[in-house]
C-alpha cells in the first residue's frame, strides 16, 4: 500500500488525477497518523478495560464428556474412610520420627490392599537455585507453589535427606487396552506432615479404593502420591520426566536406588519385605500408556466463604499455557450443579481495592445503564462490584501468565502436552464428612467425564482468559486490544518512511526531507545501529545465562552483569560508529550524523515485530509490553527538536504537552527509569534488593519464562534506542538554517 502511495504521489505532480481510493485512504492515514495512533492506543486500553463485557458464558463443547450423567459411587462410607485414614496417618506421623518412610509404607500397603500395581519413585532434590522462586512469594501476594513449598527454608539448612520419594499406584482398567491413563496427584509434605496433607492423602486413599472397584474405567488410573518436600512441582516433574524420557543408560543405578529405598521403607517387616518387593515388583517403574489428563488436588485448611464451601482452580501452566477450557467447564458444572460447591479463581490480593478500577467499574455501569435506557436491547450493564471482581480475576490470571511460572504441579504436565489442573479444596478445621463426600463425588465425577472422553482434549479453547468461573474471553476477542495497541506502530513507521506533505505549508518537519533525498545511506546506517543494539541485547541475555552459572553471591552477579552490559553497550556504539563511518565513506560521505527519523522507523519496525511474535509465545507479556512500549515508540523525539518546537511560533499547547509526555514516558520506561519507578511504586510491597532481583531473573531463566526474553530482547534494545533518539542531535545543516 505504501509503495503504491509513493508511485502515485510522483504521478500526482504530473496529472491532477485523483489517486485510487486505497491510496487516498493510505495518504489520509499517514496525514493524520498522530491522531490515529493515539486513538488506536486509547481504543486498545479501553478494549482491555471492557473485556469483561465481551466475555461469553462457557459451555461444554465436547459431547463425550457428559459431566454428571452417571451416579457417583463415592458415598458416606468412603468419606468416613477418608477421614479415618487421615486420622490414622496423623497418628502414625506423630509416633514415628521418619514421616516419609511411615507414610510411604502405609500408602504402599493401602495400594496393594486394593489390588493395584504399585511402585515407588525416588528422585533427587532439585537444584538449589530453585529457592529463587521465594522472591515473588516473599511479597505476600500469593502462595507461589502449593502448601508444601513453605517448609523449604527450614529444610534447607539441615540437608539430612537429599531426596524425596513418590509412591505411585496404578489401577488397571478392567476392560481397557491399557494404552491410556489419567493421573491423579496428591501432594503431601513429608517434611512437615500436617492436617492438610493427612486430609489430602486420606481423600486420595478413599478415592483410589473406590475407583479400584469401578468396572467403567476405560483408562488406567495412576495415583501419584507426590512427596512435595521441595514443592509439588519438582516431584511431579521428575516423575513425568522418568515416565517420558527414562534414563535408560542409568537403569541399574536407578534400580539399585529404588531397591534401597524400598528396603528402607519396608524394613520393619524384615525378611518378608523382600518377598513383597519382589512379588509385587515394587521396584519396577510401571507405565500405563499415554497420559491423557492430570488432576492435582489437595485439601487445605480454611474458612467457608459467603456461607459456601469453595475450592480454587489453578490452571496457568508455564508461560501462560492453559489447559483445555472444557476441563475447567466440567469441574465447574459438576461442582455447581451437582455438589453445590463454589468454584473460585484465585485473585491477587489488593487488585479489588484499586481506586481507578472501581472508578472504571462505576462509570462503565453508568454507561451501561444509560445505554439500556436509550435502547432496552443494549443490555450490557454490569454491576460495578461484579466488574471489579471480573477484572481482578482477569488481571491476576494475566499476572501469573506474565511471570511465566506455572501456578502449581499441573504445570509439569503441560510440558508434555498433557492437560492438567489443580483443585484446592478449602475445608474448615473440623472437616465435615459431608464435605469430604462432596469432594470425593466431584473428583469421581470429573474423572468419569475424563474417562468418557474418547479422543484427547481438542474440542474447546486452549487460548482464553477466564473472567469468572463460567465466563470466558476467547482469543478472538482478546487479540483485538493488542491489535489496536500495535496498529499505531506500523502507521508511525510508514509515516516516517514516506512523509506525505499536506498541500498547505505547515509541513515544517524538515527532518523528513532528508529521507527522500538521501537514498540508502541513512537506511543502512539505521539498520546497522538497530542491528548492533539488538545483537548487544542478545549478548546481554547470553551473559545473564553464563553469569548465572558463576559461583558467587547474587549481588556480585548482578553487578558483574550490569558492568558487562554497560561496557558492551559502549563497545557496540563504538563499533557501530566505525561501521557507519565506512558506509558514509562509500556513499559520497554526506552528513556524519545519524538520521533520527530513520532510526525511529527501524526501531518501531523491530519492536512491532518483536511484540507480535511475543504475543504468540506469551500473550499477556506482549500486551503489557505493548502498553509500555507503544507510547514510547510513538512519542519519542530528540530533545533538541522538542525544545526547538517549544520555542517556535507555530507551537500548540497540545503538541508541547504531547512531546513532554513522550519524553517523560521514554525516561520512565527506560532501563534506568523502570527500576526506580517500580521501586517507588511497589517498594513497600515487594522486597526489592539487588540480590532478590538477580534471583528473580535467574528463576525466570530456569523456568524458561518468556518474560525474560521480552525484557532483554525486546524491551531493553527498544528503550536504549529510544534513549538514543531522545539524545540524538539534529543534522548540522538544518541547524544553520
Amino acid at each position, binding site marked *: 500500500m505504501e509503495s503504491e502511495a509513493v508511485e502515485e504521489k510522483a504521478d500526482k505532480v504530473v496529472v491532477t488525477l485523483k489517486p485510487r481510493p486505497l491510496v487516498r485512504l493510505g495518504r489520509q492515514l499517514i496525514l493524520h497518523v498522530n491522531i490515529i495512533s493515539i486513538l488506536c492506543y486509547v481504543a486498545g486500553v479501553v478494549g482491555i478495560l471492557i473485556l469483561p463485557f465481551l466475555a461469553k458464558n462457557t459451555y461444554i463443547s465436547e459431547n463425550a464428556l457428559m459431566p454428571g450423567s452417571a451416579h457417583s459411587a463415592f458415598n458416606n462410607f468412603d468419606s468416613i474412610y477418608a477421614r479415618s485414614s487421615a486420622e490414622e496417618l496423623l497418628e502414625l506421623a506423630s509416633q514415628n520420627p521418619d514421616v516419609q518412610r511411615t507414610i510411604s509404607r502405609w500408602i504402599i500397603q493401602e495400594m496393594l490392599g486394593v489390588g493395584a500395581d504399585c511402585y515407588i519413585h525416588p528422585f533427587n532434590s532439585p537444584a538449589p537455585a530453585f529457592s529463587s522462586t521465594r522472591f515473588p512469594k516473599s511479597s505476600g501476594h500469593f502462595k507461589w507453589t502449593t502448601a508444601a513449598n513453605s517448609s523449604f527454608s527450614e529444610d534447607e539448612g539441615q540437608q539430612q535427606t537429599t531426596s524425596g520419594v513418590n509412591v505411585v499406584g496404578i489401577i*488397571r482398567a478392567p*476392560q*481397557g487396552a491399557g494404552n491410556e491413563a489419567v493421573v491423579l496427584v496428591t501432594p503431601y509434605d513429608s517434611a512437615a506432615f500436617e492436617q492438610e496433607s493427612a486430609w489430602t492423602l486420606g481423600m486420595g486413599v478413599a478415592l483410589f479404593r473406590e475407583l479400584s472397584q469401578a468396572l467403567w474405567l476405560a483408562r488406567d488410573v495412576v495415583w501419584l502420591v507426590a512427596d512435595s518436600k521441595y514443592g509439588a512441582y519438582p516431584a511431579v516433574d521428575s516423575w513425568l520426566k522418568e515416565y517420558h*524420557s527414562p534414563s*535408560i543408560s542409568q537403569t541399574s543405578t536407578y534400580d539399585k536406588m529404588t531397591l534401597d529405598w524400598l528396603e528402607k521403607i519396608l524394613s520393619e517387616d524384615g525378611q518378608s519385605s523382600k518377598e513383597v518387593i519382589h*512379588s509385587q515388583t515394587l521396584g*519396577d517403574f510401571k507405565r500405563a500408556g499415554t497420559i491423557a489428563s492430570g488432576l492435582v488436588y489437595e485439601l487445605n485448611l480454611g474458612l467457608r466463604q459467603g456461607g459456601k464451601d469453595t475450592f480454587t482452580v489453578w490452571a496457568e501452566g508455564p508461560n501462560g499455557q492453559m489447559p483445555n477450557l472444557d476441563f475447567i467447564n466440567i469441574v465447574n458444572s459438576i461442582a455447581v450443579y451437582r455438589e453445590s460447591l463454589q468454584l473460585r479463581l484465585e485473585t491477587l490480593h489488593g487488585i479489588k481495592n484499586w481506586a481507578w478500577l472501581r472508578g472504571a467499574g462505576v462509570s462503565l455501569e453508568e454507561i451501561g445503564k444509560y445505554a439500556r435506557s436509550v435502547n432496552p436491547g443494549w443490555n450490557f450493564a454490569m454491576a460495578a462490584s461484579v466488574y471489579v471482581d471480573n477484572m481482578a480475576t482477569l488481571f491476576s490470571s494475566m499476572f501469573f501468565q506474565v511471570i511465566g511460572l506455572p501456578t502449581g504441579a499441573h504445570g509439569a504436565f503441560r510440558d508434555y502436552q498433557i492437560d492438567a489442573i489443580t483443585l484446592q479444596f478449602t475445608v474448615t478445621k473440623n472437616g465435615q464428612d459431608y464435605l469430604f463426600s462432596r469432594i470425593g463425588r466431584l473428583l469421581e465425577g470429573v474423572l468419569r467425564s475424563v474417562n468418557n472422553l474418547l*479422543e*484427547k482434549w481438542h474440542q474447546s479453547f486452549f487460548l482464553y482468559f477466564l473472567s469468572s468461573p463460567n465466563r470466558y474471553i476467547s482469543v478472538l476477542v482478546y487479540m483485538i486490544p493488542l491489535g489496536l495497541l500495535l496498529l499505531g506502530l506500523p502507521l508511525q513507521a510508514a509515516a516516517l518512511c514516506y512523509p506525505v506533505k499536506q498541500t498547505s505549508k505547515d509541513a515544517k518537519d524538515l527532518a523528513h526531507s532528508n529521507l527522500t533525498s538521501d537514498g540508502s545511506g541513512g537506511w543502512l546506517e539505521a539498520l546497522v545501529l538497530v542491528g548492533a543494539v539488538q545483537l548487544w541485547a542478545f549478548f546481554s541475555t547470553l551473559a545473564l545465562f553464563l553469569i548465572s552459572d558463576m559461583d558467587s553471591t547474587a549481588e556480585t552477579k548482578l553487578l558483574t552483569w550490569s558492568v558487562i552490559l554497560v561496557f558492551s553497550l559502549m563497545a557496540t556504539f563504538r563499533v557501530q560508529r566505525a561501521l557507519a563511518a565506512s558506509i558514509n565513506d562509500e556513499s559520497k560521505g554526506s552528513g556524519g550524523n545519524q538520521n533520527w527519523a530513520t532510526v525511529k522507523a527501524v526501531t518501531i519496525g523491530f519492536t512491532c515485530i518483536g511484540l507480535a511474535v511475543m504475543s504468540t509465545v506469551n500473550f499477556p507479556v506482549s500486551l503489557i509490553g505493548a502498553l509500555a512500549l507503544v507510547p514510547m515508540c510513538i512519542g519519542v523525539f530528540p530533545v533538541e527538536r522538542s525544545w526547538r518546537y517549544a520555542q517556535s511560533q507555530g507551537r500548540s499547547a497540545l503538541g508541547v504537552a504531547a512531546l513532554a509526555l513522550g519524553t517523560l514516558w521514554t525516561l520512565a520506561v527506560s532501563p534506568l527509569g523502570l527500576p526506580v519507578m517500580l521501586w517507588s511504586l511497589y517498594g513497600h510491597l515487594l522486597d526489592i534488593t539487588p540480590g532478590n532481583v538477580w534471583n528473580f531473573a535467574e528463576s525466570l531463566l530456569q523456568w524458561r519464562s518468556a518474560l525474560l526474553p521480552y525484557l532483554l530482547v525486546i524491551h531493553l534494545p527498544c528503550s536504549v534506542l529510544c534513549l538514543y533518539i531522545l539524545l540524538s542531535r539534529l543534522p548540522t545543516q538544518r541547524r544553520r538554517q
Partner: protein
Amino acid sequence: MASKDQTLPSLLVTLLFLLLFSALLSRISGLESVVDEKEKFSEDLLIRPLSDGKVLSHFYFKNYQRTLGSAAHTHVFPKAISQLVSKFHISELELSFTQGRWNYEHWGGLDPIASSNAKPSGVELWALFDVPLNQVDPTWRNLTHALSGLFCASINFLESPEGVASPNLIFESRLKSGADGFVRYGALPREAVCTENLTPWLKLLPCRDKAGIASLLDRPSIYNGHYHSLRVHVKRSGPERAVVLEQTLTIVLQPTQIREGGMKELPHWSLTSLFGRQLGGKCPVAHSSHVLLELEQSLVESVKASADKTGGKVTSGVDIPDNSVFHVSPYPEAVLVESLDSWDVPKFSSVMLEYDLEKYRSDQPLNLAMHWKQKMAWSSVRGPFRVSRFLTGSGNEKGSIAIEMKKNFNVSSENGDSSGGDLLEVTVFQMVPWYVRLYMHTLTARIDGNPVPLRDITTQMLVTPAEDRLHPAVLEMHLKLPRNMVSLSLTVDFDKGFLHIDEHPPDADHGFDLPAAFLSFPTSQTRRLYLNHQAADNKDSSLIQTLNEAGSLYVYTTILLVPLATPDFSMPYNVITFTCTVLALYFGSLLNTLRRRIGEEERLAKAGSGGKLKKAIAKFMEGKSENQKKLIKVSGVILVAAIGVTVSYVLEHFEAL
C-alpha cells in the same frame, strides 16, 4: 366296553411309540459309533482360582474331523469351518477377540493356558496357507472377508497390506517342521469385542449354548469380567490332514460375594455365583465333557504348609478338596497330580480336580463351589521375564519405542527351562505401521543398562522396512541372552509421519494404536503333565491332553497409543474460505488492471464528465456559497442517516408485531 375299546388303541399307540423310540435309539447309538470314527467333539471347562481373588474360567471345545471333502457330510463339525479350510487351503489359522489385558504377574505366565490364551486387546489373526507364494496375498484377502462375515467383525480391514506382516522367525517353533507354507499376520488393536462376536462363535458348537458347558455363558456376567478372550484355532494335522478346531473362551471374573473382611479376604465363589446360570449336564453329542478345577503348585504348597502348621497329618498328605484353607464341593471324581514325566511326581505340584459331566443332569446340576476358610497368599508361576513396552518422548515429532524385559525373581534356574544351556533364547516380533517411521540404525540393546553390540546377542534378525501406505515395518529378532542378566532393553527411535486427511480413522484425535509386540521363549517350555492314574481309558479330558503337550512360551506386550499430529478437521472449510477470498481479490485486481485504460480515464477526467446525478447535483450546487454547499452536504448525510434509522426502527417494530 367303551373303556376296553379305548384302551386297545392307546396300547397300540404306546407300542408303536416304543418301537419307534427304540429304532431311534439304535440309530443314535449307530451315529455315535460314526462320530467315533470320523468326527469327535469334546468340551471342557477349566477353573482356576487366582491369587488376587479373581477366578479364571477357560472354556475349551475341541472338534475333530478326520477327512475333509467338499461333499462330505458332517454331523457335529461346523460346515463353515470345513469349507473355509478347504477353500483357502489353510494349514493353520488362529483368530482371537480379546477385551482387557492378561495380568502376567498375578494370573500366571508360564502355564499353557496363559501362554496360548493371553492375547493382545482387539483382534489378532494369523494363518498358514498351503498355496504357492503368488497366491498367498489374494487368499489372505479373501479369508479376511470370509472371517469378517462369519464373526461379525471388521476383520476385512486386514485385507489392506499396510497392516499385514509375513513373519518367519516367531512362528518357527510353533509351526514346527513339516508344515510348509506361508504365514500372514495381522492385528486390529482397536476392534471392540462384544456379544456380536460371541454369537457366531457359539454357532460353531454343535449344542450352541443350549446344552453342555456353553450353557453357562450368561452374557452380562462374562462381559463384566477383567479379561475376555475368544479364540478360534484351526489346524490340519496328521498324515490324513485331519482338521482340528479348537474354540476357547478365557475369562477372568471377580466373584461378587463380599465378605466381612472386605477386599483383603479371598471371596467364595461357585459356578452359579460366577455365571448366574446352572450347569445341567453335558452336550449330548460330546464325546467327553469335563469340568476341571486346577490348583496351582504354590497354592498346594501353601495349603500343605498351613496343614503342617496346624498339626495335620504330614505323612499321609493333605486332602486337597477339603482342608484347613478351603473347601471344594462337590467332591471330585478324580484328582490328577502334575508330574515331571510319566511316573515321577515331585513333592509339590499342581493338582487338578476332575468332574465328569456324564453324571450331572438338568435336575441335578453341577454347582462347583469353593469356600475359603482362611486367608491364603500365594502367587502364580511367572514367566522368566516380565515384559513391558512403552513409548518415550513427547510431542508430535518423534519418540522411541522401548521393549524392556526384566528377569522375574522367583524363577529359579531349573524352573521351566530344560534345555538351552547357559543361554536364554528369545524371539521378538514387532510390527509397526508405516506412519511410525522407525530408524533401524538407532536400534540399541542394553543389558543391565549397558549398551551391547547387537551382533553379540542376535543370532538372526529379519527387518522388513516399511513402505508408505503399502506395508508395515516388521522387526524380528532372535536373541541369545546370558542367563545371569537382570534386564534387557531394546529401543528404537522413530519419527511420526503425516497422514492424508482422508486416511484418518474416525475419532482421529484419539491417537493411533500400535499392535502388540510378541515374544516367544523357545527355551522355556509350558507344559503341565497331568496323568490320570485312576482312569486309563480313552475318555480322558481333551483339555488335559492339550495341557500335556509341550510348547514354547509366548508373551504379548500391551498395545501402545501414539498421538500423531492430526489436522483440525474443520480446517478444510477455513481453507476453502481463505482460498476463495484470496482468489477473488487476486482476480478482481487483475481484471481491474487489465480492464482499465489510463489514457481514456485521463481524457474523461479532463472532460470532467460524470453521471446524471452528479450533473444534477452540480447544477443544484451552482451559485451557492461555500457555506451553503457545506450545509447542504451535511444535511444530505443527516437525511440518509435518518432514513436508515427510521427503516431499521420500523423493521424492528414490525418484527415485534
